[in-house]
C-alpha cells in the first residue's frame, strides 16, 4: 500500500504543525508515508473563485505527482473534495487520483480503522467543539449533514472518541458554515466575518474549551476572527489531537521538532 500525505499550500506554509502531526500519526500507525515534492496545491483556491482554468495547471501537477499512490491523504476536506470532483476531467492520471484521494479522518476511519487509531492512546482533557468543513461534510460523507433524514453518523467524531479525556460540546447548529469559503472570505468579508463570529459564539455557548477541525482553512479564518475580537480559543486539527500535540496551542507552533 503506497500512501502519500498531501499538505495543501496553506497548511504547508501557515500550519505546518498540523502536517507534522498527521505524518507522525500515520507513522505511529505503521503506515509508510511518502511526502512527494512536485505539487503544492490542488488549484481549488482559484477554481472556486471562478478561475478553474487558472487552477488547472496546479491540479494537473497534483494528478501527476500523486498518480502512482494507492491512497492520497489530504489534510483538508475541501481540497480532497476538489480533487475528487475535478481531477476526473484531466485524463487517466486524473481519474485515478480522483478515486484515490481522501481526507485524513476519512482515511483513518475507512482504511486504518478506529480500533487501530485507539491504540495510539491519545489523551486530551478538553471539551471540544467539532468543526467539519462544509465540503468535507457534504462532499465526503464525513458525517451526516443535518439536512438529511438518514441515520446519524460521524467519522470524525468516531476517530476523536478514541481520545481519552476528550468530550464533545453540543452545538446549537452543529454544521453551520463558519463563513470561510475561500475567496468568499475576501469578496464577502463582512458576511464572512459575521458568520465566523456566530460560529464562535455557538462554540462558546456550548461550553467548548477548544475547537477541533478537519479543515485548517476554516480554522485560520475562525482564528483570525477570534483573535481580532481578543479571543484565545485553541483550535486544532484532528491530527494534532491524535499526535498529542494539542496540549499547547498547536496553531501557534513554529513547526519545529518538539
Amino acid at each position, binding site marked *: 500500500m503506497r500512501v502519500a500525505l498531501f*499538505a495543501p*499550500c496553506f497548511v*504547508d*506554509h501557515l*500550519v*505546518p504543525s498540523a*502536517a*507534522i502531526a498527521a505524518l507522525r500519526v500515520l507513522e505511529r500507525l505503521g503506515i509508510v508515508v511518502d*511526502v512527494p515534492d512536485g505539487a*503544492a*496545491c490542488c*488549484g481549488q*483556491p*482559484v477554481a*472556486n*473563485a*471562478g*478561475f*478553474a482554468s*487558472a*487552477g*488547472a*495547471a*496546479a491540479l*494537473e*501537477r497534483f494528478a501527476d505527482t500523486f498518480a502512482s499512490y494507492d491512497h492520497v491523504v489530504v489534510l483538508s476536506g475541501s481540497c480532497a473534495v476538489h480533487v475528487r470532483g475535478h481531477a476526473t476531467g484531466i485524463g487517466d492520471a486524473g481519474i485515478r487520483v480522483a478515486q484515490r484521494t481522501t481526507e485524513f479522518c476519512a482515511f483513518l476511519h475507512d482504511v486504518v480503522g478506529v480500533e487501530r487509531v485507539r491504540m495510539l492512546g491519545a489523551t486530551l482533557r478538553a471539551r471540544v467543539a467539532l468543526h467539519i468543513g*462544509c*465540503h468535507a*461534510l*457534504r462532499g465526503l460523507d464525513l458525517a451526516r*449533514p443535518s*439536512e*438529511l*433524514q438518514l441515520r446519524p453518523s460521524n467519522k470524525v467524531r468516531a476517530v476523536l472518541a478514541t481520545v481519552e479525556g476528550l468530550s464533545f460540546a453540543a452545538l446549537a447548529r452543529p*454544521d453551520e*458554515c463558519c*463563513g470561510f*469559503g*475561500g475567496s*468568499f*472570505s*475576501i*469578496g*464577502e*468579508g*463582512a*458576511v*464572512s*466575518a*459575521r*458568520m465566523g463570529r456566530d460560529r464562535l459564539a455557538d462554540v462558546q455557548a456550548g461550553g467548548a474549551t477548544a475547537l477541533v477541525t478537519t479543515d485548517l482553512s476554516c480554522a485560520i*479564518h475562525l*482564528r*483570525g476572527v*477570534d*483573535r481580532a475580537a481578543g479571543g484565545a480559543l485553541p483550535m486544532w486539527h484532528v491530527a494534532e489531537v491524535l499526535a498529542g500535540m494539542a496540549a499547547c496551542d498547536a*496553531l501557534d*507552533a*513554529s*513547526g519545529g521538532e518538539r
Partner: protein
Amino acid sequence: MRDRGEPRPLPVLDATGAVDHAAGAERFVANEARTTWHDASLWFVREKRDRAASTVEDWEALRDAASAIKTHTLSRLDEYLAQFEQRATARGITVHWARDAAEHNEIVLGILSARGARRLVKSKSMLTEECGLNDYLIGRGIDVVDTDLGERIVQLRNEPPSHIVMPAIHLKKEEIGETFHEHLGTPAGDDDPDALTAAARVHLRARFLAADAALTGVNFAIAETGGIVVCTNEGNADLGTALAPVHIASMGIEKLVPRAADLGVFLRLLARSATGQASTVYASHMHAARPGQALHVVLVDNGRSAQLGRADFWGSLKCIRCAACINTCPVYRRSGGYSYGSTVPGPIGSVLTPGFDLQKYASLPFASTLCGSCAAVCPVRVDLDVQLYKWRQLAVDAGYVSPVKGWLMRRLGAVLADPALLQLTVGIAGAILRVVPRPLARRLAGAWGRWRELPEMPAQSFRAWYRANRRGPD
C-alpha cells in the same frame, strides 16, 4: 416608516449598474442586532423544516422521486405542455402562451380589458413579480391588490418581497404596525400580530368582495388532466377565485407534472420544506371555471426554455419554490433578500437570475461559501452549489469580475502550480510580515485583515521541516 438611519432596502449597484451583492450584504450586517434577528427568524423556519422532514420515513426517497419526476417532465416538456393545453382547453380553460414578461403582461391586461375589469386581487405569484406585472397594470389604470398578508404589507410600503415564501420576513412587527397605522388606520403603536392580521382581514375582505378579477400563481399544473393546483395557508387564492368573475392563473412552463398521482410526492415535500407544516391549509385543485366564471391559464417562458437548453443549469427548473434553500443559506440569513437585487434571492435566485442577465447579476453566484446546505435541503435535489460554481466560471470567462481580481487570480493560479514560486512568494510575504507592525500588516492584507487578525507566520514550512527531519540534508 423605517428605523432612523435604516438604508432603503434596495440592492447596491456598481458603476456599471450590476448588482454588488457584497456591498449590499455589508450594509445589512452593519446592523448587528437586526442581522441576529433575521438569521434567527430564518433558522427557526429551517428547524421547523427539519422536524417536519424527520416525521416522514421515506424522506430521502421522496426527494429522489420528486427529482426524477421533474427531470423526466423537463426532458419532454414540449409534449407535456401540449398535452396540458389540449386537456385544459377541453375543460373550457383558455390557455395563453407568453414568450416573455412583456407578452405575459399584455395578455393579462388584454383579459382584464375585454371584461372591463378594473379591480384585480392577486394571490402570491413570484412569476408576476418577475414580470413586473403590478407596475405595468397600475400604470394602465388597474387597481391591483396583493392579498397574501406578507405581500400586502410590502405592497403598502412600496417595497418588493424580500423572500419568496415570506415576503415580509425582513420587517419587524413594530414596522408593520406603523405601516398599518398609516394605511389601514390601526391604533398607533399596535403591533399585536393577531390584531394586525384582523385589520388586514377586514381591509382585504372588502377588496375580495369588490374584485372584478383574481390572479393567482400556480404551484403545479397536471398535464394528464389539464388542471392546476394552488397552495396557500391564508385562503386568499380561494377567496379571490371563488368570488371574482375572472380567474387568471400565471405559471412558468416548468410547473408541469405528468400525472395527478405525482402530486402525492410533491405536496408531501412542499409545505414541509417551505414552512415545516405537514400540509398547506388549502391545496386547491382547479379543473374548470366555476359556472359563469372564466378561467385563463397563462403559460410563461420568459427565459425558461433558454435555461432548459443550458447543460449545466437546466436542473434549476426542477425548483418548486419552497425556499428551503433560502432559509438554510447562511449568507442569505445574514445579507437579507434585497442584497440580491433579484426577484428570487438566495441560492436558487443566484442560479436562476444570471440566466436572465449574467453581467448584471454576476456577483450572485459568488454570494455563497459553496457550503452545500442548499442542495442538501432541496426537496427536488437541485445541485445548487454545483451550479453556483459553474456560474462563477462563466462570469469570469465573460469578463464580469474586476480586472484587478482577474489579474490576481491568474497570477495566484500560476504561483500555486509552482512549489518553488509559492515558496518564494510566501517567503517574501513572511519577511514583510515579520518587520511590519501588526496594524499596518492587517491594513496591507486588505479585505482579509479588515475583518480578521492575520495568521502567525511559522519559521519553517512543512516541506522544509520534512526535508530536514525525514530526508536528511539534501
